[in-house]
């Protein structure tokens, strides 16, 4: 099981003179069970790339292979692809529409033609895993708080039992605790279901805390595809393209600039603590 992107490019707004590319010749392979973070400045093509992964946008060049099959072949079942590659858009709570939380979560699996029992079981499981208290199941989703709505919307995608889960800025607009809560839940679900997770985020701190592998997009090109440590060791390159290293990493760089010989290849608070203690003691 894998997803292969083979020289994907995506053209838009074509007139006689100008051609704009949202994506330029992207080649990558996603293995089963990976946790990939996608970063890039606004307009770098992150969202377009995510929509290509589940067949919502058709690339103007190159092919996407899901489990060895080209998803844009004539007879390919895109319907099935979309049930296996679940997509959580930005502000997914705007897509809530049903009268109760439970019905809303059932909507996805219902469209996959499952039996009633399967649908309800899957919806319960998804709500439970997202940490929604059972007394909320039969309330209107519109009466929930922002963080709860977001979790219900994600549960709606999880209920379809996707093998690949794509999340486009899932924590944006939430308070610090709500944000941590959602990302922790996603990490737990990933471990339990052993699915592949692709997380788009502007928060370098979150990327450093959660993912294993990072894609850096710049102007439609995949310029770095490496581990978290490796990516955040390219401080200057990241800053040049409008990104940054995590706060903690930049503190280590500042210490180094002041003449303290510390290892700057540090991305989390714990690592930074150990490194500074090592120096001071």
């Amino acid at each position: 099981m894998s997803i292969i992107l083979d020289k994907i490019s995506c053209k838009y707004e074509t007139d006689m003179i100008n051609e704009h590319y949202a994506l330029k010749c992207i080649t990558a392979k996603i293995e089963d069970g990976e946790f990939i973070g996608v970063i890039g400045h606004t307009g770098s093509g992150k969202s377009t790339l995510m929509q290509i992964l589940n067949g919502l946008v058709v690339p103007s060049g190159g092919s996407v292979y899901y489990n060895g099959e080209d998803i844009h072949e004539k007879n390919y079942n895109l319907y099935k692809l979309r049930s296996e590659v679940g997509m959580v858009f930005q502000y997914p709570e705007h897509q809530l529409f049903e009268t109760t939380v439970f019905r809303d979560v059932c909507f996805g699996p219902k469209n996959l033609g499952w039996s009633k029992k399967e649908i309800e079981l899957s919806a319960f499981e998804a709500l439970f895993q997202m940490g929604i208290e059972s007394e909320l199941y039969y309330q209107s989703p519109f009466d929930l708080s922002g963080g709860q709505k977001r979790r219900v919307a994600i549960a709606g995608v999880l209920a379809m039992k996707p093998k690949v889960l794509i999340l486009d800025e899932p924590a944006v607009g939430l308070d610090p605790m709500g944000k941590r809560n959602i990302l922790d839940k996603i990490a737990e679900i990933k471990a339990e279901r052993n699915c592949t997770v692709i997380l788009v985020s502007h928060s370098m701190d979150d990327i450093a805390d959660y993912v294993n592998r990072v894609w850096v997009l710049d102007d439609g090109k995949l310029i770095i595809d490496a581990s978290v440590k490796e990516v955040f060791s390219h401080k200057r390159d990241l800053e040049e393209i409008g990104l940054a290293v995590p706060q903690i990493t930049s503190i280590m760089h500042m210490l180094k600039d002041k003449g303290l010989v510390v290892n700057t290849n540090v991305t989390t608070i714990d690592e930074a603590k150990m490194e500074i203690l090592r120096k001071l003691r």
Partner: protein
Amino acid sequence: MIKAENIVYEYIRRDEEGNVEGIDRVLDGISLDVQTGEFIAVIGHNGSGKSTFARNLNRLLTPTEGSLWIDGLNSDDMENTWKIRQSTGMVFQNPDNQIISSVVEEDVGFGPENMGVPTDDIWKRVEDALNAVDMIKYRSYSPNKLSGGQKQRVAIAGVLAMHPKCIILDEATAMLDPQGRLETLQTVKALNKMEKITIILITQDMEEVIYADKVFVMDHGKITMSGTPREIFTNEEALKECQLDLPQALKLANELRKEGIDITEGLLTAEELVDAICQLY
């Protein structure tokens, strides 16, 4: 600039026949005083009433009880609506809710045009505003061809072009990449310093709070804490109770302190932490 005395705001929930089902008291006795030229941050968890408060400042809503003066104008008086909206500009979280024209520069010019600014002046304002948010090269683009963050910068430019006395940013940087966020905040800070525009920054991002002169923490419709960022961030426990958090640098400082490292209390920025560590070395 803004004076609130014990303001209360209630959302009234009604059933299908229009009978009152319940009353949500979202603002519960808020009193505060903001001087002209101050940079204020308002923080609080989702549903704490921050946005409702902001909407009251712009007379999108009017307080159920209590009194509110904006730029010396009583917000109870219908007559003051347009004057208040001209003096306090608002930037929302989702730029799609704010952008109306099909060309970027027309969108930015919409505000001043409605105020009856002479045409030449409008063009100058549009240019200055787009320069301030670094979107001048997109002036002839269609906003729906821009990415989320780019749109947000256009929305900010639209408010800037109206030369308001006060700008309210309701989580306006949530969708931006690190560079975009920094640029926006620096722009806002510069407007505050140079033009003495009062800034009210509503945010979930604790790193942004550092820029403010004064912080109000909201919880359940009340202001539970207020003070300089330095004062607010010394009380980690109280912040956590309000589902908030500390900036990364201060979390690291606290962790180091727990290990017995003697780091000065009352730090605020990463630079200060770095200096404190260097002194120990």
